[in-house]
């Protein structure tokens, strides 16, 4: 083998490597963009279809809108027993109550677990972790009986009161993880300045755990907004329906003419989730990552 051929093979190989290195990111981008489009296509199509005249949902798989129509929204808004505003307001009440409950009760429990030394702490902590995995179905029947004896059926109390009692233990865990990352020296400094445990919690820990509180707020918002099972069970009076339960009412009346308005109201119901995602994704992703790792 001459030096000449050796040189050309090396050169050929080098150019080969260079082109693949150059093409590779492009290939990855094309594959990623294509899979992203495939994933989101149905959702985009739903939004577009909700802006078309009713029957085109069953004819046009494309996502180009020729003439924008908001008829579906106008019809859908008043298609059920109550105007859709009612359901949105009901959902808002449940969501706000749940957020408030989770923020107060979970942060208190998390502070106790992360910072205070008390008898039986390890035991309760283990119970708390176990309760995260508990299926709601195991407790739903007696809870239903309990709340119906209390006269709470068709009120929002069965949906909000448990949150005031930190039953969403997942958030307790999330906040414990976060508080553990706050330097203990800050507590000590506050203690030397004469702060008791209560004011350390209020003045030192709470202000520093705002990111964890934000994560909790956004997750509670989205999960409560989407929650269906408990709302379906506790709310049977159309006046008290939340958005998911109301939407389900559409499914029961499945005439093909109502698909347009059903799509329109589905889109309306997804807007708050989408907005929460848009403005809160930093906290969402960080939240999943921190609880996921430990």
């Amino acid at each position, binding site marked *: 083998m001459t030096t000449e051929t050796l040189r050309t093979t090396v050169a050929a190989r080098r150019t080969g490597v260079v082109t693949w290195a150059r093409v590779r990111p492009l290939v990855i*981008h094309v594959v*990623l963009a294509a*899979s992203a489009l495939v994933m*989101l296509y*149905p*959702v985009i*199509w*739903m939004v577009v279809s909700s802006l078309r005249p009713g029957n085109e*949902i*069953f004819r*046009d*798989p494309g996502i180009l809108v020729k003439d924008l129509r908001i008829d579906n929204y106008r019809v859908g808004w008043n298609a059920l027993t109550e105007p859709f505003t009612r359901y949105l307001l009901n959902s808002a009440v449940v969501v706000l109550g749940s957020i408030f409950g989770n923020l107060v*009760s979970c942060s*208190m*429990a998390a502070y*106790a677990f992360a910072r*205070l*030394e*008390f008898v039986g702490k390890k035991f*309760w902590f283990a119970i*708390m972790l176990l309760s995260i995995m508990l*299926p*709601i*179905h*195991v*407790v*739903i*029947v*007696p809870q239903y*009986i*309990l709340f*119906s004896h209390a006269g709470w059926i068709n009120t929002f109390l069965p949906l909000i009161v*448990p949150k005031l*009692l*930190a*039953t969403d233990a997942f958030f307790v865990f999330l906040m414990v993880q976060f508080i553990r990352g706050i330097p203990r020296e800050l507590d000590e400094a506050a203690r030397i300045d004469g702060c008791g*445990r209560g004011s350390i919690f209020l003045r030192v820990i709470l202000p520093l755990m705002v990111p964890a509180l934000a994560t909790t707020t956004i997750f509670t918002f*989205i999960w409560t907004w989407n929650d*269906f*099972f408990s709302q379906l*069970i506790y709310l049977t009076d159309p006046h008290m329906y939340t958005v*998911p339960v109301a*939407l*389900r009412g*559409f*499914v*029961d009346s499945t005439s093909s003419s109502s698909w347009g308005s*059903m*799509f329109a109201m*589905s889109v309306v*119901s997804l807007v708050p989730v989408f907005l*929460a*995602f848009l403005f809160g*994704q930093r906290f*969402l*992703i960080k939240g*999943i*990552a921190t609880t*996921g*790792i430990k």
Partner: protein
Amino acid sequence: MSALGELGSLRGKKTAGQKRDNLAGYLFLAPWLLGLFLITIGPMLASLYLSFTDYNLIQAPKWIGLDNFTRMLSDERLHNSLRVTFTYVFVSVPLQLAIALLLAVVLDRGVRGMAFYRSVFYLPSLLGSSVAIAILWRQVFGTTGLLNQLLDLVGIHGKGWISDPSTALGTLVVLNVWTFGSPMVIFLAGLRQIPSMYYEAASVDGAGTLRRFFSITLPLLTPIIFFNLVLQIIHAFQAFTQAFVVSGGSGGPSDSTMFFTLYLYDRGFGNFDMGYASAMAWFLLVIIGIFTAANFLLSKYWVFYDD
């Protein structure tokens, strides 16, 4: 002597502080403890009791011993609902995790616009549990739905995917796989933790992309895979909304999407057969408990801890 005195006063302070800590600890824990006993443990024990009774919400519960459990042994619909649920869990969870891992590995290699792709892939996990998406699924996989309209463009005449018992469950599996974004984000965070020097050393030794994946990435990621597996299995066993809405509340066609949870709802809140529903709920808890325990036991054979 003075040193001893100091020690004593220190110890005295400590116990006084400890007492205050005990008090403060339980005060801060009070809402959670109240919830634990009133909303969780109380109802759990009550449902355990109810599972041995015949109870319809109106008449007082009547003790019937193990009747509910023997009834479960011969309840064909319940057996079917178990088959449906197991199929759903064991097909959708591995698929979902495999896709999540694949995309996390691709995204982790410094793709430009990574944050954008991550968000796009993550979005469905937030939307996936909503009634709105279930409604969309009903349309997409319907006889004249989006999928069949698209198939028509390439000359394939599709069937009604949801109205056919052999494919209805498949559409729900697709829906669960669609929400691979949240395990993907957890994988991404895990990949960040792998020291890059491992890869550099492997490259120096001449290991290729695949070799590096199987010898470094995969073993070091096993704790995260395990975590995701445990979480997603527990989650999938409890799936309800999507099957309920997609099947119009019936679990149909011919019970092909009748998840265990749907059947439980049907018994408890459709027929007010609360005793039987409670027995089913405990059975579900035992199943989930067994699978979680098995997961933990098996984990020592394949999960690799670096430290």
